[in-house]
């Protein structure tokens, strides 16, 4: 009883420590993100002005100066950063000059899709990799082992942008599916219905495949390798000698132990997933945050770009946190370190 309470307290302390650290990281990331966005010279107005000048309606430099002043783009970077960060803490992410909308609205529209793709991809990855890894470990060097590894490997080794384009094209050839986006244009204008849901489900496989395949190979490999390690250990031989059924044996201890490195790498996986999702999002035209962030970075639409970066970082940090906490939960040794 007392031991449980003690380990419970340790867990709590650990969680709090990690939360505090997460907050510090986010503050540092916010400053760094803002800095990095301002790194390329020029600012958003240069693109706005370019639009005007392309039609021959020139903007002279005096007007440019006043526009810059009107939008507050001539203030020192630290001041602009401070204003953004304080607004951000209050939940106001500023305004996007590119989309002419509040950044909150833009992100709120896109966040559900990002979460959908990311969580579904992760679930898919785990749901497929773990059983496949177990199978591959148990039937080492078999055809199934080889086949599973091969698909995973080719998926991992092919650059994501090319894979996305090829898969999209194949889906079009096979099913006549419209390219780009998660829904056909006809359905986007309509309210939710069964037909619309079906359309969405038809469009999901390609993005999910592209986003998850890269990490899947590594997961399968890790699962397979660590499970093989565990299976080689003395306690397994003992259990076998004692007559424990193979399937029960595998499930009880070795798999649980092999899951440790998988879980602990959850945070990294999420980080990789986000960058892979950005590339896939651009190539496939997904309604996720990635393409918006990319556009905003190109146009140096400061608030939108910085907010997108922050949101992605927050999600990544949450991912790290969750994996750390889950690991601490399952492996008591971690709490003590």
């Amino acid at each position, binding site marked *: 009883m007392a031991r449980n309470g003690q380990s419970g307290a340790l867990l709590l302390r650990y969680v709090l420590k990690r939360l505090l650290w997460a907050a510090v990281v986010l503050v540092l990331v916010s400053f760094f993100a803002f800095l990095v966005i301002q790194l390329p*010279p*020029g*600012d958003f107005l*240069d*693109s706005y*002005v*370019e*639009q*005007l*000048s*392309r*039609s*021959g*309606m*020139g*903007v*002279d*430099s*005096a*007007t*440019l100066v*006043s*526009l810059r002043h*009107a*939008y*507050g783009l001539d203030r020192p970077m630290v001041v602009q950063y401070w204003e953004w960060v304080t607004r951000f803490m209050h939940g*106001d992410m500023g305004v996007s*000059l*590119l*989309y*002419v*909308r*509040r*950044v909150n609205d*833009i992100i709120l*529209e*896109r966040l559900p899709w990002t979460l959908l793709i990311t969580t579904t991809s992760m679930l898919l990855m785990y749901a497929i990799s773990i059983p496949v890894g177990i199978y591959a470990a148990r039937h080492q060097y078999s055809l199934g082992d080889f086949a599973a590894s091969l698909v995973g490997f080719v998926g991992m080794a092919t650059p994501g942008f090319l894979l996305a*384009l090829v898969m999209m*094209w194949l889906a*079009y050839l096979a099913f*006549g599916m*419209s*390219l*780009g*986006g998660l829904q056909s*244009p006809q359905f*986007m*204008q309509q309210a939710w219905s069964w037909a619309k849901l079906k359309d969405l489900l038809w469009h999901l496989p390609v993005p999910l495949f592209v986003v998850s395949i890269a990490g899947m190979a590594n997961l399968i490999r890790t699962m397979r390798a660590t499970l093989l390690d565990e299976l080689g250990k003395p306690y397994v031989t003992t259990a076998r000698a004692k007559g424990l059924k193979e399937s029960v044996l595998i499930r009880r201890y070795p798999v649980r132990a092999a899951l440790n490195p998988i879980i602990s790498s959850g945070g990294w996986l999420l980080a990789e997933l986000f960058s892979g999702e950005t590339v896939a999002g*651009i*190539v*496939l*035209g997904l*309604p996720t945050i990635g*393409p*918006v962030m*990319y*556009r905003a970075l*190109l*146009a*140096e639409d400061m608030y939108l770009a910085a907010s997108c970066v922050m949101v992605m970082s927050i999600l990544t940090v949450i991912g790290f946190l969750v994996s750390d906490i889950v690991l601490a939960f399952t492996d008591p040794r971690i709490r003590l370190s």
Partner: protein
Amino acid sequence: MLAERVAAGELPPVEQRLPKNPFVRHARQIGKYGGTLYDQTGSPGGRFHLDGALIAGAQETDNDGEIIRPHLCDRVDVNQDYSEFTFHIREGLKWSDGVDLTADDVLWWWQNEQRNAVIYPEGPRTFKVGNDYAEFSKLDPWTFRIKFPTSFRPCLNMSASEWMAFGSYFGQPAHWMKQFHADFNPKADELARQNGFGSWYQYYTMMMEYMHPHVNKPHVGPWFRAASTTTHDIYERNPYFAEVDQEGNQLPYIDRIYVQVVEDQKLQTARRATGAVSEGLCEMSQISVFTRNAARADYNIKHWRLANGSECMFAFNLNHKDPVKRRIYNDLKFRQALSYAINRRRINETLYFGQAKEWQATLSPKVSFFDPSWLEYCARYDQDTANRLLDEAGLPWDKERRSRLGPDGQRFVLVVIYNQQAFPVELLEFVRQDWAEVGVEVIMKETDFRFREWVCRAGDQDCTCWNADMVEEVAAYLPWATKWNPQEVLFYARDWWLWYYNSGQSGIEPPQRWKDQFERMAAWYRAKSVEEYRRLGHAVWDFFSRQLVCIGTVGYAPQPVVIKNGLRNVSDTLTIGYGSLWAKSYMVQTYYWDFPEGHG
């Protein structure tokens, strides 16, 4: 689509919605109402293929960009010396929310927006000659007059371009814009802050919007923007649009334009090739995909042409800060040499199937003061002459004859900064090789347009490139709007221009012949007679040609277009360009679907 609303009493019947004398747009075939057009854009409110069709102004040009005709104003009176222009708005013309569009809107716009010191501290951008502004006055509810201090013929050209498009660049729906203006709405600041902006004029400036009307902002074009999300924009028919077909049916036929936001250029091309849009331009480098996919994607390909004088022209920075480079770029022989070095035949055959014109970058040959010698000036492919001229320009070969040396004895390298354009990027690779063969090493740096703009405004570029549009008669006369203007787009002589524009207060004093040129251009815009217009126009453009400030490659390229099967009233052959305001010349308001229900 509107019938139910009329029946329900929400909307007046069509006779009351149209002006007394609606504009008659001749449609090839009388169309059926209904359906949706599909298009795509890079960001919400960004340019898309059909967007030129959204604007409507006082007057318009014909498809070749040569003749000016009345549009939303049924008559424009001009006085003897072209200093007073009286515009008669069609009586009964209304904004898309039913409110009359009157001279009051124009006056309100001029007095409270253009001449508002907070929004435009330096004063309005246009409607001024030298340092004096035009005067706007209202003669009666439907008539307004613009009076210039001197002759100003270009006002007619402006009235036929987007510069006088109601609701975007000229005239605003005063009843709607007042809510954003601090002088008329004490809560304007608060409203702006609620929407994320710092102050009322920031938000007001956003509401002005170039070309793409803001959501539910009253508009005069065939469609107005009804909804906008980060993934798509929806434009719906304007019930008060002032055009009818020859049988009196109100246009447009098509109810809706659905524009999907597709951030990636390559995906846009792929979507066009697989029939995701109703109409789209084909990239020549991908043309085989379009032709092969036509059946599966259910579209046909029409052969249009581009009206650009040059698909890509290069301009060197004559005001470069480095004196050595400045001397070289200012040497006419250097520019001539690089023009001679370009193998235009190869570009034409490889990229355009030999269908483009290998002419020097200049105005359209149909312009009234055109000089045919401008087409051939230094456009011949002649490496020997190029080499000789480069030798004379003071750029000797190095020992191994691999590249030329600058005056400092180092390899002469220059950077061409550009952003992704309509012309194929491969064209730049050809030019790079051509120039490398005469010893000039070039780095073609692609950037996004924002960065290019920034670098060029700072005057730090060696060379940049753009296409040569606005070469038709009407467009070429828009004041200071030509691509040959030294301070915009090609930025080839910004400091000289600033000196002239600010009367010597800033910038660098140009050489006499350039001062003369700027004076000549100003005088051209003030020409009093047709004869003077032609004489000065010829002189202005002769100077630009002889100075070879813009080195062209090939122009008047073929432009295949994909049209979804079943879309009617699309021209079989058309020359499209800025001068005819791009999509405006397509007559999108007369498009209709064979089966409108199938394209909902």
